[in-house]
């Protein structure tokens, strides 16, 4: 059997190389990609009610791309991500709706969070994380990219970098 050891080396090497090329097994694809985004309406956090009304959410016929960002005040990567989202909101607020969903949090802590980072894009309050489960989320932060027809284009699990966020914005504005 050892007579053909070069063949075995090549086989194992090929298998190893194939294993390296495989996508990250921890990156689970969202089953919502390519499907209509689930509709919902939730109460806005208090500072946003004057500008956006009592409730906000995803409805059919919105006619505007949405970046749905699921966050929580106890989430460390969300604190890194928040200033980035705010900056992009200021730049693209007329073309893209950045909507935050605060999940499994207390309202007081959420208010403290948005005040600390001076967030002006709207966030709704989902105290039990029901809408998060409707979207099949795994944890926070998580961002869903929804086009103007209401179809989910992508799900980004984890913290967004500026390049990634810019890529998603360009994707929905295309």
């Amino acid at each position: 059997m050892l007579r053909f050891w070069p063949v075995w080396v090549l086989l194992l090497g090929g298998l190893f190389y194939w294993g390296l090329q495989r996508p990250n097994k921890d990156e689970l694809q969202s089953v919502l990609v390519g499907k209509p985004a689930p509709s919902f309406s939730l109460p806005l956090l208090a500072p946003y009610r004057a500008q956006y009304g009592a409730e906000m959410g995803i409805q059919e016929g919105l006619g505007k791309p949405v970046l749905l960002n699921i966050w929580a005040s106890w989430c460390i990567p969300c604190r890194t991500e928040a200033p980035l989202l705010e900056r992009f909101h200021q730049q693209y607020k007329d073309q893209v709706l950045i909507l935050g969903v605060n999940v499994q949090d207390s309202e007081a802590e959420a208010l403290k969070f948005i005040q600390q980072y001076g967030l002006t894009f709207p966030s709704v309050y989902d105290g039990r994380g029901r809408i998060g489960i409707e979207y099949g989320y795994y944890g926070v932060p998580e961002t869903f990219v929804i086009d103007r027809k209401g179809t989910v284009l992508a799900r980004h699990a984890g913290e967004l970098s500026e390049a990634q966020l810019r890529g998603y914005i360009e994707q929905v504005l295309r």
Partner: protein
Amino acid sequence: MRRASTWWLGGLLLLALALAQPSPNTPPPDFSPEVFKIAGQLRCPVCQGESAAESNAGIAVEMRRIIAEQLAQGKSEAEIRAFFVQRYGDWILYEPPVRGLTLWVWLSPLLGLGLLGFGLWRYLARVRARALTTASDVSEEEIARLETELQSPERQP
């Protein structure tokens, strides 16, 4: 005597405190056993090595609450499982169905066993063939010499 009594009471107190602490893996006793039976078949999205029945993550607690509400609405176990598969895919089930990509999960052990059996069969066949070849190669003269050598101890006594 006082020292012995003090140590004994102290030990008993520590033991009582230890036993009073609930096990960290004990699920919260807030839902019926049927809820935990169904949740035990679902994976926790956050603590992916635990089931939704065992995990204390907020999502898992909410999943249990959803299961309890849907059971109260009269939904069947299959309907509740379909609810979560619709949102998370087959991955959420601890026993993935036999279809599509998950088909290989079920077939690969059988394939492995098949390959092992085939390998063993080929090895044994080769060994048997080699033994037969060796036996047929022995000439008549060598057989006679071997028989002579085997009889040599009888000549000595």
